[in-house]
């Protein structure tokens, strides 16, 4: 082995890090090579000199100076909060990410499983009349049913849900008719307050259909709106009883009034007229009736007439 190779290992030899074989090779070489022995001696003295360097006494003013320069106050509340929230980053940031993910998934699940939440943003679609309608007819299940259909088959607009809702719409039609009759007997003002509930309004239907395009719930609502059409046109929507001293003259006068209002009069039986007039003319009709005698039923005016359009059919019975 060359002297250069030996000298490369002198540090390890000094540190006693060599294996027995390598150590023996170096010692054999050192016995024969004075130059390498000198190098080893110089290296040993170098290390010994370094190790003999005395430990330095730390100046007392150093500790005082460090103490002075350290922040006198603790971390601010904000620093404590961020430290508490985020440090150690390698643990807390992944934890926070997982927590956020869980909350998000939970929110989506809750939204999907709670119909009230899905329904919440919709009220602007259904006009006020819809809610009045609902109140007027009591606890009808049509809106809920329609909404369920809406969620179940959103891709099929109108057809299937409309068919399924039809039966309920029929039921509802009857209910509305009964309601109208009750309301007519009870309070003529009631219907004026909620005209849309009793009589369909073509432009409103169109509007609702437009808004509810592709929405089966909207289609079902439109169907509901159509139900009262048959109710008002097929049979008298209310009975009017007029007490008059001269029924014969009253019949003539009623015919005149109705003629002036562009309506029709049919005498069903003696003393009872079936009057069909435009809805908007009903106020004038009732006002004319009051000139002929006393309205027994309804006691006030215009029981079932919506303000806008469409014919209204009334049964007018004359009693002496």
């Amino acid at each position: 082995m060359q002297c250069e190779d030996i000298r490369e290992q002198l540090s390890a030899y000094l540190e006693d890090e060599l294996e027995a074989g390598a150590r023996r090779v170096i010692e054999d070489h050192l016995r024969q090579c004075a130059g390498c022995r000198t190098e080893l001696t110089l290296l040993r003295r170098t290390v010994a000199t370094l190790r003999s360097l005395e430990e330095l006494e730390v100046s007392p003013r150093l500790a005082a100076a460090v103490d002075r320069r350290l922040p006198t106050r603790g971390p601010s509340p904000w620093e404590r909060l961020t430290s508490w929230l985020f440090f150690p980053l390698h643990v807390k940031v992944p934890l926070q990410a997982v927590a956020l993910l869980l909350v998000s998934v939970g929110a989506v699940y809750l939204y999907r499983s709670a119909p009230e939440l899905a329904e919440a943003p919709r009220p602007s679609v259904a006009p006020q009349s819809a809610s009045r309608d609902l109140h007027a007819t009591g606890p009808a299940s049509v809106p809920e049913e329609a909404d369920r259909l809406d969620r179940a088959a959103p891709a099929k607009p109108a057809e299937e849900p409309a068919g399924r809702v039809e039966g309920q719409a029929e039921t509802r039609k009857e209910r509305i008719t009964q309601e109208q009759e009750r309301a007519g007997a009870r309070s003529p003002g009631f219907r004026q307050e909620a005209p849309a509930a009793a009589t369909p309004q073509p432009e409103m239907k169109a509007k609702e259909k437009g808004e509810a395009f592709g929405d089966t719930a909207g289609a079902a609502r439109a169907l509901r709106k159509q139900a009262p059409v048959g109710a008002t046109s097929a049979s008298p929507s209310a009975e009017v009883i007029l007490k008059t001293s001269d029924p014969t003259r009253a019949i003539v006068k009623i015919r005149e009034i109705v003629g002036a209002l562009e309506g029709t009069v049919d005498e069903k039986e003696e003393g009872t007229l079936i009057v069909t007039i435009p809805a908007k003319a009903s106020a004038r009709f009732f006002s004319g009736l009051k000139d002929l005698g006393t309205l027994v039923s309804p006691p006030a005016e215009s029981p079932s007439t919506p303000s806008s359009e469409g014919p209204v059919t009334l049964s007018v019975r004359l009693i002496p």
Partner: protein
Amino acid sequence: MYRMVGDRPTAEDLTQEVFLKAYEALPRFRKAAALSTWLYRIAHNHCLNVLGERGREVVMTRANGTPDANPIALAADPGASAEQVLEQRELRAIVQEKLNELTPEHRAILVLRDIQGLSYDEIATALHLEGGTVRSRLHRARMELKEKLRRYLEA
């Protein structure tokens, strides 16, 4: 720190800065290493930064008036006890001066191993080195210092 920069006031300034840095970094201290090793690491990095900024001027501030005598040889003389203390001081000054002439990397590894007595593993952690690199760098640093001290050591 003094062995690294060779100047006591500068060493004290740097020591203060190292402790302040360590204080600020304490929340990020992981107990994977001993606190002392972690401190050595901060000190070493700070030292290298400062030395890199100021060049070698810091470590050369004391490099005036190399003694002509051979203090190491004198120190070995058992009869010179009266002068020995003075010579020992001179010897330390020479070793420090020669240390200052080394590269900061060689200086750091000699300080940590032969003056502070750290293990190879601790040095590897403090200087962010592989174990093999620690050994080879230590050997080269010793050989370089030995050559610088040769005339004092050979007498």
